[in-house]
């Protein structure tokens, strides 16, 4: 247990007076890849936001690399090497593509893969062609690439991806899935939220299924993919 990179124990979180997560626990070791599954409104985004310090959190044990992050503000958590790719993408629409990447840029670190600008453009060549375009004037798929690239520019040690496949055309989706697979192969630790199996099934080795803000199932990704009865019970709408 001590080698866990991200450890979450008894996490409760919510918005204003409403509590939507009730005591969630799981952990990821370095190089792990975990799918966070659950239906609409199950609490996946809230879990990720709670890790980032973007929503109100209860007194949980949240640690990253042995350091308590439960009461740190988002920018400190990000600076420890936690990269967040939000569901709504939240690109800076008024800034150019290159400027968006600049916002995400952080100093390189010895314990994480480095992402100099050129490498980001190699990963997503279309971004290079549009580097001076305002980000607001890009298609949804291009924006999704930009969001991922922007977060990678911070040279993160772990990537929290919130429904990266949502609303994407199949071709783009394949690109993103390939990219994520590449990142995983490089040893980046991944936490991917998905509503159904999606491409998380291809990338993740373990899964956590949420239901109404609680953990309904924890296990092997391949097992869940193979067991259609279990899948129906946990994920069908």
């Amino acid at each position, binding site marked *: 247990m001590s080698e866990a990179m991200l450890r979450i124990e008894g996490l409760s979180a919510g918005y*204003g007076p409403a509590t939507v997560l009730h005591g969630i626990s799981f952990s990821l070791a370095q190089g792990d890849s975990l799918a966070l599954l659950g239906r609409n409104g199950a609490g996946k985004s809230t879990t990720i936001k709670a890790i980032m310090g*973007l929503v109100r959190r209860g007194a949980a044990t949240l640690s990253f690399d042995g350091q308590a992050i439960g009461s740190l503000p988002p920018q400190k958590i990000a600076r420890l090497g936690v990269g967040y790719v*939000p569901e709504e993408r*939240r690109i800076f*629409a008024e*800034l150019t593509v290159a*400027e968006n990447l600049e*916002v995400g840029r952080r100093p390189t670190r010895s314990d994480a893969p480095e992402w100099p600008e050129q490498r980001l453009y190699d990963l997503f060549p279309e971004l290079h062609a549009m580097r001076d375009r305002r980000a607001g004037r890009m298609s949804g798929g291009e924006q999704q690439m930009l969001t991922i690239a*922007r977060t990678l520019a911070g040279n993160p040690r772990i990537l929290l991806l919130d429904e990266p496949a949502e609303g994407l055309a199949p071709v783009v989706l394949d690109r993103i899935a390939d990219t994520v697979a590449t990142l995983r192969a490089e040893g980046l630790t991944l936490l991917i939220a998905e509503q159904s199996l999606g491409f998380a099934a291809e990338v993740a080795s373990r899964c956590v299924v949420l239901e109404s803000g609680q953990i309904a199932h924890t296990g092997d990704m391949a097992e869940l993919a193979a067991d259609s009865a279990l899948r129906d019970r946990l994920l069908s709408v």
Partner: protein
Amino acid sequence: MGFYFAQALTGLASASSLFLVAAGLSLIFGVTRVVNFAHGSLYMIGAYVAMDVIGLFGKVPGFWLALPIAALVSAAVGGLIEVTVLRRIYRAPEMFQLVATFAIVLIAQDVAEWIWGVADRFGPRAPGLSGVVTIFGERIPEYDLFLIAMGPITLFLLWLLFARTRFGVLVRAATQDREMAAALGVDQAKLFTAVFCLGAGLAGLGGAMQVPRDAVTLTMDLEIIAEVFVITVVGGMGSIPGAYLAAILISELNAFGILILPEITLIVAFAAMAVVLVIRPYGLLGRPPSAPETPPGPGMGTLRLPAMAWGGLFLVMALLPLVVDQFMTVLIIDIMILGMFAMSLQFLMGPGGMVSFGHAAYFGVGAYGAALLVRHLEADMGWALAVAPVAAAAAALFFGWFCVRLSGVYLAMLTLAAAQIVWAAAVQMQDFTGGDDGLTGIWPAKLFGDDLAFYYLALAFAVIAVLVLRQATRSPFGRALTAARDAPLRAEALGINVQNQQWMAFTLAGTVAGLAGGLYVFKKGSVFPDVLAIPQSVDALIMVLLGGVDVLAGALIGASTFVVLEDVFNQFEAWRSMLGGVILLIAMLAPGGMAGLGSMIRRRKPA
């Protein structure tokens, strides 16, 4: 021809300093979403520091050292303000931020008076630029040409900073989505402090640049702030090129307006602002806010005092004069008058969801309406008191039409500009209003000449005000109003004409304020332009803040606290700072006001 050219250049020269100050205000607003009332204070500090530097080093090189030093000192003071005060209130509702920055204005006035004294100061001409050049046969001061050049130069440097540096990129990112920037590791706290310093430095530079043209006085802080508000709103909040365009537009209108309407140049500026805002509600180069503005606080306007409690309160009030002395009786009359004023603002802000920075306009129009009737038509008190709310209603109907087209800070700043117009009219229409000398000798009818009788008159008016405002809040009109406040789009979809409802609410609030103003004249026996000035508007905001914006009764609690505090603090020389300090404490510690304090403590417990 030559004359008009010269006039145009004068306008451009005045635009520069205004632009610097407005750019600073706009920049700070763009990033932190705080409308910084204390920006005028930073401008004033810049001017005084420049005078000191010139005094210390002589005209040469003093003047040229003065510009950067003034900018640096103002930037440092701005940084101090940001770290000690603003940082704690970024999440508070607009009203709190505004009132807190106004508290800083009060403190800055005392400190400035303490350091620099009350006497006006006159700066030297700028060395090397004290001559004139002749263009088209007109003599143009060289310093004006320097000022004219400073505008575009500053604009260009700011553009470089924001377009070409990492700092600029981060600031623009944080302006659009603070939370996302933070999630990417951007340290907003440092960024905000830096932006605040930059904006404050620009204000200080603007103040120093004015030294060769205008006297340096202790009132220059509030004098410039109204004009700067107009410019930032016309240009578009957060847009620096917009601030430049608007500064030129307004300055040119002033330069030429003075030829047509020498008396009331502010009216020209307001008219320009009204036209621009009706055509482009977010200013020349502004954009509508991307995220819907955060709704007021939770539970706004939901707390209610039951009718029984009101009945009890008024019963106690009716019996009070029997047990308290005359001094207290008079004090309570003040409380009731200001309480009505504050309640009308509470109605506007709570159920109406509209924050006004210029509510004194309607209180003052009521006061002047009554006083003018007595002075010029020799009307008796009854008529004067009947006309006061009607006059205020007419003014609110007129200005409200423009104001309700906007929302949030835009609306608030427009109300402030409206109040400044009325104030300027009262000051400048000497023959009619008595100008700065005001109207005196407006005494109540014999029947109410006695304090006790006046007390019951005021109480009767207060009961009427409470009944009207309470009924308005509970009626279908009030429910439509709160629906429009909480979810404007949904309300529109339900067939509620949001603007119309808000217009009516604005007018009603103005009417009640006018009623209070009418009483006020007869209580004081006189009226001066002060009743229309910014501090009077802010007083009402402070009372609502003290009492909490949730409840009508809060305004009464706020008014009582305010009157008592003022009475106590007035005995001290530094009363403004003391009042400012109390306001800051409340804004930082109890953003729900005193009436909200209870519910806040209750809410805190389970967490």
